């Protein structure tokens, strides 16, 4: 309370106001207050979303760095490599191999801004999986080397698939080479498989222009993710594919048997009823399927772990596909055929064979 209060003035003021009985507006106060609360929360939420979006965008822009103008650059894409990169025309390309492969991708290539040849400790220049000798790497040089990862089953954990386009910030720096260039690497994962390695080196005296070009080169590295590929020439649409029902083993096997019998009889009409719409019509696409007497169909379960399907048509198709093995009755496994089926609303359909 105000100990200095002027009670005379207070009384005078009170005389002027005491008989004022305000109108009760509680309803409109609550409605207006609620609207203000809603607007305030909406504003805060919107501001937060905009702020986070701006931060994310800025992080993306900063993380990706300035976009390098790659007009006039050349493209390296070997015969059926399944991947490519772009490089400044004055840089040197060292094709290490066009045959070594991992996961269906082929070839290894080094691109350098300076005159330098990559060799392994034996002096070979065609070893895709070997170590690289960096002795003598020019201080003003930069280099990128793309090569298959080789097969390293079970030794390393699985990582998410690599997203393209790459950024130089995706690469991991190593402890470096004493007195030599800074070293970076990136394992490339596709369809759950570590297929390739991208390595980069930056000399201690490399120019900003060459480093920027190196970043642009890394951003240009692209691995072909289009399906079908590998063992398959077509893949099934997943539009109305349903998850496996309670009896996939029996029903899928019955569909496979129907498929083989129609194929053996040359009955295109019956065949069309059990072949998926994603496959070409007719008998010829299935010429490789053995229908000799004595075959037996054996259900082999889902194809989610089948590398052929994962690589050829993607993991989503693999997890929706059921496999049935056609055992031709001979001891040779190489003559057996695996049929790949999906479950449509109208029944099980064969979409592939290998």
């Amino acid at each position, binding site marked *: 309370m105000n100990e200095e209060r*002027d009670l005379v003035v207070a009384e005078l003021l009170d005389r002027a*106001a005491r008989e*004022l009985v305000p109108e009760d*507006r509680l309803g409109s*106060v609550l409605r207006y*207050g609620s609207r203000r609360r809603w607007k305030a929360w909406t504003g805060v939420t919107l501001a937060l979303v905009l702020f986070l979006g701006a931060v994310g965008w800025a992080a993306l822009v900063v993380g990706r760095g300035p976009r390098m103008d790659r007009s006039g650059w050349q493209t390296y894409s070997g015969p059926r490599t399944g991947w490519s990169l772009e490089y400044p025309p004055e840089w040197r390309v060292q094709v290490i191999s066009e045959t070594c492969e991992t996961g269906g991708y082929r070839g290894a290539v080094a691109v350098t801004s300076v005159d330098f040849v990559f060799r392994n400790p034996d002096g070979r220049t065609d070893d895709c999986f070997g170590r690289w000798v960096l002795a003598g790497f020019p201080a003003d040089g930069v280099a990128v080397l793309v090569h298959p990862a080789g097969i390293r089953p079970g030794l390393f954990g699985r990582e998410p698939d690599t997203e393209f386009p790459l950024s130089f910030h995706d690469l991991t720096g190593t402890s470096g080479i004493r007195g030599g260039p800074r070293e970076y690497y990136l394992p490339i994962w596709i369809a759950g498989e570590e297929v390739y390695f991208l390595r980069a080196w930056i000399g201690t005296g490399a120019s900003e222009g060459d480093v920027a070009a190196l970043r642009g080169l890394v951003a240009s590295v692209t691995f072909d993710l289009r399906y079908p590929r590998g063992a398959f020439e077509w893949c099934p649409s997943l539009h109305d594919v349903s998850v496996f029902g309670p009896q996939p083993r029996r029903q899928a096997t019955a569909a496979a048997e129907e498929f083989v019998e129609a194929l053996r009889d040359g009955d295109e009409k019956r065949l069309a009823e059990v072949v998926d719409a994603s496959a070409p019509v007719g008998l010829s696409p299935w010429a490789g399927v053995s229908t000799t007497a004595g075959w037996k169909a054996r259900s082999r379960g889902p194809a989610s772990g089948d590398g052929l399907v994962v690589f050829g048509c993607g993991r989503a198709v693999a997890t929706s596909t059921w496999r049935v093995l056609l055992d031709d009755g001979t001891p040779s496994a190489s003559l057996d055929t695996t049929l790949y089926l999906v479950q449509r609303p109208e029944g099980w359909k064969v979409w592939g064979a290998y």
Partner: protein
Amino acid sequence: MPDAAAFEGFYREHLARIVRACFLVTLDRQVAEDVAAEAFARLWSRWGVIVSEDHAGGFVFKTAMRLCTRELRGNRSGLAAAVGHRDQLDEAMVRRDVTDALARLPLRQRQAVVLGDWAGFGTREVARLLGTRESTVRVHLARGRAALRATLGERQVDDG
């Protein structure tokens, strides 16, 4: 969800006081009721965030005073209109004289006198509610009281 019943209790307990304070500052009953309603609506939009009733009282008084200031500064003719309305509001001569005297006070002095003398807030609280310094409030209070006494004369004061 905020506690509507608790807010309603607070509203009914404090509404008349807030409206009367606003009336003494704006000298316009309609403006006073509108300002009070908006101050309570703003309080309701934060009800649950503002936890104690003490804080709620301070919030609604402070908001009301700001809105009064905005109304009067935003509408210069408001003061004349308030003086014009006084006959409708007050039939008694005393009330008319008081509102006349208040209307002649500068806004800050009027707010200081209403909050300090009529509402009974201490100098520190008045300074907080008006967003100014205690020393300034003291000056406004002294000048406002003196002006009121001079305008109303010792007769009314003694009658009171």
